[in-house]
């Protein structure tokens, strides 16, 4: 009886706090790693010139937030990444519809898109700086190019994999090509589209940071480069953590949006 009671107790507990439990384990893992690192550095096992003490990073991060430096540069990076993401989404969806619907466009445009994708975007970044200047627009351009491909390819795949039965049904009702696209193919492709958007949500920050690395006077990427050049490793790490947090937040925001839009999948 004791056994049953205790089992019931644990089940009740796990049902009651499922989310905090995972959050707790994630944070716990982080704290443990930080503590081990801190001890290793303080004990001299790892040189403090190579890796900053987690406590110093924490101080630099809090200072950065308090002084507004991280918020300012984070805001700029976020703006670049999100704008690039938005442009890539609009452009990617539009191109995908043309590629999926019109065979001539597919044969003419698609190989070029693949060629652009096959080129490392970092190799394009210096060119984009020349074309779009040192300001925000060149970083937005890098983010756009990086995000475009996953959005486009997943959408094309989605639009082309519509259940043949749905298409027969729509045809038998006399649906126009336009109606088939908007009432059948596009909604059916949304799970694919959101898979692409989830990928792009992470790539967007990579794009913005790469752009800032190549040449910028603001943004978290600029902050990392600047702190590195002054060998202020704690500040560099603080900026990196800020990038990671931004990317993470946007990724989970996309997941939440996907969950809402794809209500019928759950």
């Amino acid at each position, binding site marked *: 009886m004791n056994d049953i009671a205790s089992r019931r107790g644990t089940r009740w507990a796990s049902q009651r706090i499922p989310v905090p439990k995972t959050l707790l384990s994630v944070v716990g893992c982080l704290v443990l790693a930080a503590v081990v690192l801190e001890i290793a550095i303080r004990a001299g096992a790892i040189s403090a010139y190579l890796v900053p003490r987690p406590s110093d990073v924490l101080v630099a991060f809090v200072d950065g937030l308090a002084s507004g430096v991280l918020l300012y540069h984070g805001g700029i990076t976020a703006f670049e990444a999100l704008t690039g993401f938005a442009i890539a989404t609009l452009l990617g969806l539009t191109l995908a519809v043309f590629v999926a619907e019109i065979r001539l466009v597919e044969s003419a445009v698609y190989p070029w898109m693949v060629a652009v994708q096959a080129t490392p975007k970092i190799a394009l970044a210096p060119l984009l700086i020349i074309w779009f200047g040192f300001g925000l627009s060149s970083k937005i351009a890098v983010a756009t190019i990086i995000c475009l491909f996953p959005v486009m390819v997943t959408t094309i795949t989605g639009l082309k994999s519509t*259940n043949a*039965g*749905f298409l*027969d*049904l*729509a*045809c*038998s*009702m*006399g*649906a126009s090509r336009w*109606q088939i696209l908007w*009432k*059948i193919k596009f*909604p*059916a492709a*949304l799970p694919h589209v959101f898979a692409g958007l989830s990928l792009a949500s992470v790539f967007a920050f990579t794009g913005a940071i790469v752009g800032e690395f190549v040449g910028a006077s603001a943004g978290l990427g600029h902050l990392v480069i600047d702190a590195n050049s002054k060998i202020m490793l704690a500040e560099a790490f603080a900026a990196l953590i800020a990038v990671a947090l931004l990317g993470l937040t946007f990724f989970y925001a996309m997941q939440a949006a996907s969950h809402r839009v794809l*209500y*019928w*999948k759950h």
Partner: protein
Amino acid sequence: MITTDALTKTYVTRGGESVLALDRVSMVIGDGEFVSIVGPSGCGKTTILRILAGLIPDFEGRVEVENSPVKGPSPAVAVAFQDANLLPWRTVLDNILLPIEIRRLGKAKYRARAAELIEMVGLTGFEGKLPSELSGGMRQRVSIARALIQDPKILLLDEPFGALDAMTRDVLNLELSRIATATGKTVLLITHSITEAVFLSDRVVVMSPRPGRITETIDVHFPRPRGIDLTSTAEFGKYTGNIRKILNYV
């Protein structure tokens, strides 16, 4: 009314061979008649249905629906397929209203009719459910209601209950019989089940294996409404036995 006169359909395979799928199929289905086509797999019975639905544009011979030649999908014809093909992101009600939306007939005007149909197919209370929340039988009920929403003259049914278990199938056949009688639609049913064909139909068309030809047409003289007990009578057995013999003989 459905008329086919020497309907012939030839496919060209990927290898470039031409295959005769339908060979001079001629039949007339009068207003309000319920006709089933039975035949072995690959006899082209589904091809007939798809041609009548306007889904296959190229064929030889004369094909008329409601006295006008078939040139594409017609509002007078509605189809229910073997898969219910419900759009998973739409509720039961919105799936039933899809043909109205596609034909731009004004959804608001058809809400009352949709409610009637939902009641007719026994799904009252499920209007707001998603297809994933329904059983296979319920999905086919929605599919039938959707076919009826724009009040077509002709209902083409491509084995709509083929994927269901035997008990659900019996229940739905009873309801289909009742609905067909009540609404007076002209119905063409494609099926593998001889029992189903005899139970539902005024006439059963038996087809031969490829190339698909009509082997025989059998009139079924049971009065309506028909109960499920009918299927266990000796006379019913004579019909099914006869059709089975024709199918084996060919």
